[in-house]
């Protein structure tokens, strides 16, 4: 099946992003496709690289997962701009962990139309 996943919470304040990560790993292991992982609200903070690798560095796990499975990790541009993760011009990939890119809600809607299942982690 084709999944679209939405991640809405910062890994610093809630378990939800980690749950989404575990779900995606299990879905891939079970042969499903992940069309898009869309980071929205405070979820865009998953693309932030903490200054020290450590207890809660989910961004490193996201990077490895994106690389291993050629996944598309998109941050909503306006949510990222609000949180200092993208400049006014849009993309500013220097601030993002590798594997993440800036995109828009249109990509989310588009992927939803192609997907069999839509799941969100964190409200």
């Amino acid at each position: 099946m084709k999944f679209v996943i939405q991640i809405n919470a910062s890994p610093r304040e809630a378990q939800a992003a980690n749950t989404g990560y575990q779900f995606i790993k299990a879905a891939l292991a079970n042969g499903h496709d992940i069309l898009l992982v869309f980071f929205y609200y405070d979820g865009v903070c998953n693309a932030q690289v903490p200054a020290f690798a450590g207890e809660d560095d989910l961004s490193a796990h996201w990077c490895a997962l994106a690389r291993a499975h050629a996944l598309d990790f998109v941050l909503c541009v306006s949510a990222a701009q609000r949180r200092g993760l993208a400049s006014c011009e849009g993309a500013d990939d220097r601030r993002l962990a590798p594997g993440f890119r800036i995109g828009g809600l249109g990509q989310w809607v588009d992927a939803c139309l192609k997907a069999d299942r839509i799941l969100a982690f964190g409200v």
Partner: protein
Amino acid sequence: MSVLHLVNTSPFETVALIRCLERAGEGDAVLLLENGVYGALSGCGFSAKVAAAAGSLDIVVLEPDLEARGLDRARLLQSLRLVGYSGFVELAVRHPLSLSWT
């Protein structure tokens, strides 16, 4: 289209679980995860409502989150079933829609 409901907050603190059960339709599934797994406990204020709802709903508990919190299976309501992340994926496959209750 049946719905997979995700409940991730503690029923000791929020009414999300109860509000979810009130809006879940027959054949829907309710997955208790993260702090929502406390909703699987027997002998608590909310337990009777959860047990009653388990008659028409598939109420499921995410086992890794249960283990994380050190909750003994002997303390859980009998009518619920446990799954891992693979079982979570299966639930998402079985139910076309999903809603989160926080």
